[in-house]
């Protein structure tokens, strides 16, 4: 019942600066592409995902958080079945007509915290303000203080029997709202749990949900592999980002078998049709097995196949070329394929989450080249492999230890001149969450986490630092420490 929020938004400003700098490389040489990327830039200035959370269902059904969550917000299989059924327990009392009229399915989640961020190899002016005799120095930038996370206001439930919904207005820490998700879902079509249709903006049906994971710090509060794009690449897609479209999914009675097929607008989940007219597709399948001495073991595979435009049509009717929103052309393909697992040992006390992804972007996307132009010499389609292994040890329903190692390696650079390891990432996180009480009315977790990530030649995906690496060949270490109170009610 509790979704999760990444602290990415906390540091959205720094992240945007990082992306902006990337625009200014090859795009300047190609006019069409420059216009296109100029048009796309506002898209990236919007806040990314958020952490979602809700005890609204716990209140509705009178169940403790631990009934649906291994440790909230991560779902256990009971919670997964509940979600797959359209937020229904299927006890003939799911429809709102059976609810007390005063019941309103809404939850707020926020995390006051103290955090520290430190990033190495950052270019810092020797004289503040720059200019004159100022030179760029290689320094470690460190900041720390008390802070707030973003705020999630999540409402979800059933509109009628077998018609469910979710609306999540989410704010970054500065209070700027966007719709993290908003959809209606028609459940159990034709009386079959294999046919459920979701329409709107929603989280992709990832076996390992980034919205519900147990990490909150800047460097640990995102899966690097879910948001990675090679340096100089124009594809802004991340499998961790919510998308807009329609999804057909189905599941067995216990959700041991699950599938989903989604048709998504190629606009990175942004509203207003800002760029593309094409569609992406996302396919997932997973199968779980019960191993009595270990617990439930789930394996799954996924494939995201899409296109992104490289040329924005413009109109000069006003005197200067202005991009025509939603009418970009020169579409080029990309894909992400891989597999994931959710494995348990010690009768469910020890959880392992392995994940692997293989990424490919067309060379035009990888070099920000407009499709109506010629590719620069020595250009290739960027290809990379990534993955992570995450582990949780549930000391009790109220105390969980967490850890994760993540790795991304470029297999083929977009340009021959790029160092072979440009863009490679290694990331580590560990921490714990303690839930001092576990009622059905509200939730509180004391969260302590340390994370660090090394990126080669790029600024950290967390947005830490000044948005650029001091040297394209240097390895930038970014470290986060977070102590906070994660609560919802």
């Amino acid at each position, binding site marked *: 019942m509790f979704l999760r929020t990444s602290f990415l938004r906390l540091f959205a400003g720094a992240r945007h600066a990082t992306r902006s700098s990337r625009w200014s490389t090859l795009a300047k040489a190609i006019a069409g592409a420059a216009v296109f990327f100029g048009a796309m830039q506002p898209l990236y200035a919007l806040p990314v995902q958020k952490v979602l959370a809700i005890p609204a269902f716990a209140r509705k059904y009178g169940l403790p958080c631990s009934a649906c969550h291994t440790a909230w917000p991560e779902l256990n299989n*009971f919670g997964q079945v509940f979600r797959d059924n359209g937020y229904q327990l299927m006890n003939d*009392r799911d429809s709102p007509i059976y609810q007390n009229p005063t019941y309103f399915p809404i939850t707020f989640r926020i995390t006051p915290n103290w955090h520290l961020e430190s990033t*190495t190899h950052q270019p810092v002016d020797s004289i503040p303000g720059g200019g004159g005799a100022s030179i760029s120095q290689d320094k470690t930038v460190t900041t720390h203080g008390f802070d707030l996370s973003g705020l999630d206001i999540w409402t979800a439930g059933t509109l009628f029997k077998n018609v469910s919904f979710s609306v999540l207005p989410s704010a970054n820490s500065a209070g700027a709202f966007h719709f993290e998700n908003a959809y209606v879902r028609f459940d159990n079509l034709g009386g079959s749990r294999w046919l459920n249709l979701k329409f709107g903006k929603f989280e992709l049906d990832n076996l390992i949900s980034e919205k519900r994971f147990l990490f909150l710090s800047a460097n640990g509060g995102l899966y690097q592999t879910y948001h990675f794009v090679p340096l100089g690449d124009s594809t802004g897609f991340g499998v961790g980002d919510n998308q807009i479209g329609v999804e057909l999914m189905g599941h067995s009675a216990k959700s041991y078998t699950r599938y989903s097929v989604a048709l998504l607008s190629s606009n990175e989940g942004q509203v207003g049709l800002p760029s593309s007219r094409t569609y992406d597709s996302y396919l997932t399948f997973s199968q779980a097995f019960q191993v009595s001495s270990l617990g439930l073991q789930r394996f799954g595979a996924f494939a995201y196949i899409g296109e992104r435009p490289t040329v924005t049509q413009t109109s000069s009717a006003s005197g200067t070329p202005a991009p025509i929103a939603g009418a970009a052309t020169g579409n080029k393909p990309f894909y992400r394929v891989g597999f994931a697992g959710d494995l348990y040992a010690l009768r469910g006390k020890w959880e392992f989450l392995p994940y692997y992804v293989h990424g490919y972007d067309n060379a035009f996307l990888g070099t920000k080249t407009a499709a109506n132009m010629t590719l620069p010499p020595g250009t290739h389609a960027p290809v990379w492999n990534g993955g992570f292994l995450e582990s949780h040890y549930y000391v*009790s329903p109220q105390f969980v230890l967490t850890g994760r190692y993540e790795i991304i390696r470029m297999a083929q650079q977009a340009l021959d001149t790029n160092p072979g390891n440009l863009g490679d990432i290694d990331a580590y996180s560990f921490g714990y969450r303690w839930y001092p009480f*576990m009622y059905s009315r509200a939730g509180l977790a*004391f969260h302590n986490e*340390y994370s660090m990530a090394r990126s080669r030649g790029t600024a950290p995906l967390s947005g830490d630092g000044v948005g650029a690496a001091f040297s394209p060949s240097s390895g930038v270490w970014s470290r986060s*420490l977070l102590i906070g109170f994660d609560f919802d009610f």
Partner: protein
Amino acid sequence: MKLGVSVVAFLPGLACLSLMAGAAPCSAQINIHVHTATGPAESHIGNLTGHSEAGKQLYRRFCIGCHGPNGDGKGENAPYLADGIQPRDFTVGLFKCRSTVSGSLPLDSDLFDTVGRGLVTTGMPSWGPLTDQDRADLVAFIKTFSPRFEEEKPEKPIPNPAESADTPESQKRGEELYQKTLKCFECHGKSGRGDGPSAPTLRDNKGNPIPPYDFTTGSRFKCGATNADLYRIFMTGLDGTPMPAWSDWVSPDQGWDLVHYLRTLQVNYKTGKSKTAPQSREKSKENTAKLK
């Protein structure tokens, strides 16, 4: 910043944790105290053996909110459950859904099925998504709340003979039983809506009001979804509620007649077809057949 410095900085968080753990009121830590009446117990369902020690952890995770730390049905959410139907008090050792005669303890498999099936129209959901081993462990732990499970053995299950033909004549005979002979209507109402003249007066064994089952709205029954489940409910009764066992009063054929008539009260009834939802049928198969 060096790694060592960061790791050292992690320690203040641990210190805060220690302080809070000490300061948190024990009463707030609902998961800590679970009191049982007996020592460790086992359950045996097919090839599965459940262990109460493992079940205790699961009970704390899934069940304690309604059934309470003492298993007496006084969990924090008990006062707020739909229709005021209270959670089972495990300490008494009385269970609605059994295959055994009224007054007897249930079989382990009865409890196992109930956990997996849930009790439709009540706050008790289907815990089928749990693994079979988890459910077996839960059954073992539930048994530790009542000394009855140490002192008594469940009786043998009542026979469940093959279903007779579902014909208009059978339904007519069932109607006679319902409306005249057994006077089921006094609680369940003339049309099966649970609005009989005695309905407002009914109490469970704890003295709590308990509404008769409304046959017209539900797609399933409290103790199952199939005709065989409904037949068994007649014959065993629902212990702890005013619903008596009819095994000493009606013959098997009459029991099936009653089943066939009650099916006609359900809105979507079609003669000769089970009215159970697809999911209900699957769950019934899952819960009862697979482990036998």
